[in-house]
């Protein structure tokens, strides 16, 4: 059993004294920041990234993964208690979770979210361990043309699964690709789009973009809307769900886990689509759909499980292909590169400690989440009662220090401020920013692979259609587009994302 041996190696790394400590700190910090209203996982990770610089790479990535799970769970807590989703994927949790809180079942909702997430995390960890190695092996056969086509497929999938206007999402991706090209061209040494600024010769970092758009931009939006929050603090009692609750939630959790795990692997999918479709599925299957939106426990259990399963399986494309499937993974790639690790199929063979240690730490992180969150819910609730006028200056200061520390660059701070305004502008124009971040990370990779592919084929673009892997991927991409543009599906897709939100 190679799988068991590998997992054993992984758990050896993940449970080693310091690593489990860093996993714990990561989960704790992630939840702490993630619970703050208006801060999603992307901003949380970007903010805490410099805190991992002093650590060895394995510990740093384990801690970052912990931060991610913590932030996701913290987001759900906020969604349930305050009806303020910190990220798109917890929008659905708001629907029934907050209703449950209003009826005095906040404790139950939080507990079932934690338990569902833990179950999903366990299954998804096994899935990652089982599927990552064969995929990584397959990935070693990929040539430049195949990689290029894979990224095309990934970006198209990201568009299809994004909510809102398709064509705007495509434009945001292309814009992201272009922003990613800012800086020195590796082949010719020409500095592109730096407007004569020496600080831009190395390009724009992912930190300033993520922090600017998802941190600063979000704060401005929150301030202009004013803060209307109703926290159900005193009612957080009765943490333990009854047997009846557990029985009603079991199947939804299992279905949510399956759906989420599958959707998480798809490039561009990730937690958002997972939670949306799990909710829709449960509503379809329910005997009495009218309970949904009025505090149905399945409406919390299924999307939370799907959300977490997808968060975990979205590591599969990152670890095997070196391709991020969502903005959080894009940040993880940035973190890996900062720590001197080249993401891609070679990680598993070149650095098995890191690879399996990270996978095992996923499960450990999920376990810590349950242990940590059930007793600490009272503390998170306290945090939620903090007034926003004290919260956002603190967040701003942490972001400023964080973004400066990534490269010790004052230019990054100014860039983040600039992207803060751009993010605000995007919000006004209904342009979703997540595809931009994906494009940003993939820009240089796409150019490099396109260049290599065309160099090998002497400029003949037919290479993308004659190589079997590349051709298959492109056909898949076209199929996806056709399906989405088909009038009936298009209508359905709009309904899915609009429904009840």
């Amino acid at each position, binding site marked *: 059993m190679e799988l068991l041996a590998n997992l054993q190696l992984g758990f050896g790394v993940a449970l080693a004294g310091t690593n489990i400590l860093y996993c714990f700190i990561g989960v704790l910090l992630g939840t702490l920041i993630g619970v703050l209203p208006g801060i999603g996982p992307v901003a949380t990770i970007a903010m805490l990234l410099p805190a991992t610089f002093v650590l060895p790479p394995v510990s740093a990535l384990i801690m970052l993964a912990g931060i991610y799970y913590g932030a996701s769970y913290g987001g759900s807590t906020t969604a349930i208690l305050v009806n303020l989703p910190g990220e798109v994927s917890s929008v659905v949790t708001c629907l029934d979770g907050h209703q449950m809180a209003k009826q005095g079942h906040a404790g139950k909702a939080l507990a079932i979210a934690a338990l569902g997430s833990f179950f999903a995390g366990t299954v998804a960890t096994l899935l990652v361990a089982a599927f990552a190695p064969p995929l990584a092996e397959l990935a070693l056969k990929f040539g430049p043309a195949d990689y290029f086509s894979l990224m095309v497929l990934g970006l198209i999938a990201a568009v299809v699964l994004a909510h809102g206007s398709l064509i705007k999402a495509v*434009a945001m991706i292309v814009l992201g690709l272009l922003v990613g090209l800012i800086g020195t061209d590796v082949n010719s040494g020409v500095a592109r789009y730096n407007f004569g600024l020496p600080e831009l010769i190395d390009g724009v970092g992912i930190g300033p973009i993520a922090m600017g758009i998802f941190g600063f931009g979000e704060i401005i939006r929150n301030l202009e809307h004013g803060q209307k929050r109703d926290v159900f603090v005193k009612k957080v009692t009765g943490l333990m769900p009854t047997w009846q609750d557990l029985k009603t939630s079991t199947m939804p959790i299992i279905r949510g886990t399956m759906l989420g795990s599958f959707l998480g692997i798809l490039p561009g999918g990730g937690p958002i689509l997972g939670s949306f479709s799990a909710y829709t599925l449960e509503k379809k299957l329910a005997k009495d759909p009218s309970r949904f939106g009025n505090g149905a426990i399945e409406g919390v259990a299924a999307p939370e499980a799907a959300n977490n399963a997808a968060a975990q399986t979205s590591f599969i494309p990152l670890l095997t292909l070196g391709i991020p499937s969502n903005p959080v993974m894009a940040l993880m790639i940035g973190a890996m590169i900062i720590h001197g690790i080249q993401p891609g199929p070679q990680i598993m063979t070149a650095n098995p400690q890191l690879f399996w240690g990270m996978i095992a730490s996923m499960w450990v992180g999920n376990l810590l989440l349950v242990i940590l969150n059930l007793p600490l819910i009272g503390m998170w609730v306290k945090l939620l009662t903090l*007034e926003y006028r004290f919260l956002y200056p603190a967040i701003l200061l942490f972001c400023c220090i964080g973004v400066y520390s990534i490269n010790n660059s004052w230019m990054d701070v100014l860039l983040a401020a600039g992207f803060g305004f751009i993010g605000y502008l995007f919000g006004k124009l209904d342009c979703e920013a997540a595809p931009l971040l994906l494009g940003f990370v993939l820009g240089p990779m796409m150019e490099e692979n396109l260049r290599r592919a065309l160099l090998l084929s002497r400029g003949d673009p037919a290479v993308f259609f004659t190589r079997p892997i590349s051709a298959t991927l492109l056909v898949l991409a076209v199929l996806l587009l056709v399906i989405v543009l088909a009038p009936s599906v298009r209508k359905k897709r709009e309904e899915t994302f609009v429904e009840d939100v």
Partner: protein
Amino acid sequence: MRHLIKNPRDFWAGIMFLGVGGLFAGIALTYKLGTAARMGPGFFPFFLGVILAILGLAIALTALREKNKGPGVEKFHWGPVFWVLMPIVVFGFGLKIAGMILMGLFVVIVSSIGSEEFKLRPTVWLAIGLVIFCSLAFVAALKLPIPLCPGFEFFEQFRLCRV
């Protein structure tokens, strides 16, 4: 003019993409384009820029159709924009000169003005507390090379890494 635009958010987004795409493509022309087999630094960005401009044009044009009718662009609130972004810019320029202690106080106090319920006294206490926390957590514990208060050895001795 105004009644022609049925979906202002899409229209202006399209114009934005058109402009930015055109800008990127235009600048790309000043780099060497090369051929498909030997791509120069301008090749990929030029085509991306053109694609972005075309997409932008398409978005703007569809915004003129009656059936795509949508809500207008919400008003810009320049107050929050200014009070949030200005302190960050000052922080960026001033950190190496004035250090994190002063800049941290500045960011927290000035950005608080952007809130409708701004009160000076609690904000000052918050700022002092946060700056102490950040100095201990980021500089003393995590050893990030951030200048605390240049010129004052008392503060600087806590830093292990120097810029």
